[in-house]
């Protein structure tokens, strides 16, 4: 049976999920805006400059009208941090799903979630195993909503390289973008997961996208430069910037393995984190 405390946590988490979804789809994080504006200012190709002009105007209009930046309001990916005094129960999962149903009705979001085989649309952006909810222990109680559009997600790839083929990582990332062409709405952000296991590398790649994108280390910058040499540019129409940033996250792996995953993200790199209010 649900206690009064549980009910309060359920309501707060559902509310925080709703707020985070609304924030994420209507305006972009500050670090994302910084890199888009920088690339727009540096672009030299006329067609690409027009694409950037539309992107910057779109960001303004979404903010002004309080509407989603993109009609593909994504598939709901969420990350929770749970402090020691909050029990991890089924209720927390239900609360996140509840927040997403409300977001779908009220923001509104496009109902995107379907059964993978029958293609039946549930109409409320939840379904079997969806939303994706990733839980980690933390000091504060937060929910991050990271809605992922299909154009970019469909261009993502994973490979198991030979452990002696570290040099192949950069080539795999560049080749992923070569196959993606203009489909993932470039200029893109690329999250790279290196190590862990087959499934773990994919999870790392997605988490890498949540790292600050307005700074890159030398390795990330080198991969980013190689991707940009392709010249695919905004929307595949050609231009100086194909990747706005590359972010790498690693984990230990088997001595005989080198898993590498690339999670592609469109320029509209939407995510927001909200602290869950605690009533005491």
């Amino acid at each position, binding site marked *: 049976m649900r206690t009064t405390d549980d009910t309060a946590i359920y309501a707060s988490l559902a509310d925080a999920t709703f707020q985070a979804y609304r924030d994420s789809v209507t305006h972009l994080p500050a670090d994302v805006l910084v890199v888009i504006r920088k690339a727009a200012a540096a672009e030299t190709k*006329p*067609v690409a400059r*027009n*694409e950037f002009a*539309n*992107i910057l*105007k*779109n960001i303004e*209009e*979404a903010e002004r*009208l309080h*509407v*989603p*930046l*993109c*009609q*593909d*309001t994504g598939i709901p990916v969420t990350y929770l941090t749970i402090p020691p005094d909050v029990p991890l129960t089924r209720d927390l999962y239900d609360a996140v799903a509840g927040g997403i149903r409300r977001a779908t009705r009220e923001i*509104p*979001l*496009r*109902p*995107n979630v379907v059964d993978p085989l029958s293609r039946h*649309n549930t*109409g409320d952006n939840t379904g079997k195993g969806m939303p994706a909810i990733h839980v980690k222990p933390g000091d504060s109680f937060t929910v991050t909503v990271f809605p992922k*559009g*299909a*154009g970019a997600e*469909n261009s993502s790839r994973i490979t198991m390289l*030979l452990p002696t*083929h570290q*040099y192949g990582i*950069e*080539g795999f990332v*560049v*080749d992923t973008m*070569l196959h993606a*062409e*203009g*489909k993932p*709405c470039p200029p893109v952000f690329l999250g790279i997961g290196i190590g862990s296991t087959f499934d773990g590398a994919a999870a790392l790649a997605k988490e890498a996208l949540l790292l600050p994108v307005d700074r890159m280390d030398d390795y990330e910058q080198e991969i980013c430069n*190689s991707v940009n*040499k*392709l*010249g*695919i*540019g*905004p*929307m*595949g*129409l*050609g231009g100086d910037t194909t990747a706005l940033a590359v972010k790498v996250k690693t984990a230990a792996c088997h001595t005989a393995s080198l898993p590498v995953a690339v999670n592609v993200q*469109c*320029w*509209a790199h939407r995510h927001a984190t909200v602290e869950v209010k605690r009533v005491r």
Partner: protein
Amino acid sequence: MSGDVVQLHTPLVEEVLSLRAGDRVELSGIVYTARDEAHLRMQKDGIPFDPKGAAIYHCGPVVQDNRIIAAGPTTSARMNELSGFLLDRGVRALIGKGGMGALVREQLKNRGVYLAFTGGCAALASTHMTLKGVFFPDLGMAEAIWMIELDHLPLVVGIDSHGNDLFEAVMRHARQEFEQNKKKCEPMGNGYKE
């Protein structure tokens, strides 16, 4: 490529044949949204609007209370194999993002153009739109055919009716670049074959 913006209004006529890849245009008048499911349905049940001079918009909008809330383009390449019957029936423009394949490039020759709108710019698009009606609403919000009146939507000609294709030219260059750099990073004498 000229710096001027060409004004177009649906239904489109032969004027689209004079457009060149890279030209900027602003499109006004009625367009019809259609994604994968709508194309399949039209092939089965027929086209529910007059296709002559029509423009098809690859888009699954967010609609609320009979208003377009957000309506950017979807990835056109998914419709690569599904577009021929529309052009056969007189459709003059396909609008979307990311470009289309060689088949569509051929099908557009002497008939119509592919117009690109900036992916993700759904809020901006909605400020140029008025919702006028819907066909096949049973397909759901994303897949139904929405009849939308455009007011000067800014687009670029991605593929013209003469076989010029901005996307294809960009990717040809990208593949060359990739092949050149790949050779540099491959180690000597490696026996591993995928």
